[in-house]
């Protein structure tokens, strides 16, 4: 620990570069999670392709969306099933 970080820990102050880094980290989680509709459409097509091996998917009623949480991102896929194939 450098003298500066030690002093900061006592006074409760934070270097402005650490504030910058933390803010960047958070904003990038959001930025990186903002994907284009085309990108999500591609994921949806691939998901359907894979799952179709096991069950018949109702493409009309299938949705793939991206959520942003505070510090993370979630990919949510709702696949409507028409029929389960017997494997």
């Amino acid at each position: 620990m450098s003298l500066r970080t030690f002093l900061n820990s006592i006074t409760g102050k934070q270097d402005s570069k650490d504030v910058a880094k933390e803010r960047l980290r958070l904003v990038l989680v959001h930025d990186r999670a903002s994907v284009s509709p085309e990108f999500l459409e591609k994921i949806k097509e691939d998901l359907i392709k894979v799952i179709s091996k096991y069950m018949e998917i109702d493409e009309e009623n299938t949705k793939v969306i991206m959520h942003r949480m505070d510090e993370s991102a979630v990919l949510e896929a709702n696949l409507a099933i028409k029929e389960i194939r017997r494997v």
Partner: protein
Amino acid sequence: MGEVIVVTSGKGGVGKTTTAANLGVGLALLGKKVALIDADIGLRNLDVVMGLENRIVYDLVDVVEGRCRSKQALIRDKRYDNLFLLPAAQTRDKSAVTPEQMKALCTELSEEFDFILVDCPAGIEQGFRNAIAGATRALIVTTPEVSAVRDADRIIGLLEAAELNSPQLIINRLRPDMVKRGDMMDIDDILEILAIGLIGVIPDDERIIISTNRGEPVIALDKDSASGQAYRNIVRRVMGESVPFIDFDENKSVFNRLKKMMGLGG
């Protein structure tokens, strides 16, 4: 077959054009045949940074629209052997060129030149897509600021999507005094966030402004300047050499040692 390198950043004003100019001159000084392409149509500036603004006859759009051959539009920089500039059009906009046309042009030039450096416009729209279309390698310029690093991150994503992989980072305008005080992100902070390879660090240096005033890149005008040395190192790394990174800590830097030796204090 030459290498086509795009110099990009996302954010404007971080030093793309200055970097392209210095790397171009640096490569030419090492005996490489270099073409600099200004892809910033409508806001051309590489010509003034290079000091070649009075020699423009044809431009990039004239070439792609077939009004002249690329050879006629390439301005030879008489101060260096084998350095040429293809200026952007000033009175047109970015839609005047397509990515396919840029790709064809870069392919054509790569038969004759060792290096083609493309100065990319700011932004992520068509100008950016044009600039990266023919590139085989990308250098991303950023400064140690939140806004510039954020935009660099976006560019890295877009380059990946365009299958222009393994871009390398240039950190520009680093201020060692501010880093020391904890008021500027350091090299490791930025590399940790962006997670790409580093190819060079340029210290903040007023000599860049002086050299731009004169229209002569600092790498040639002011060889002993800290920025000139940093650019020379990047040039060597671009050519595949492994060059140790300069320690910009005030007392250790070569520049300051030199100043001390000459009795200039510091």
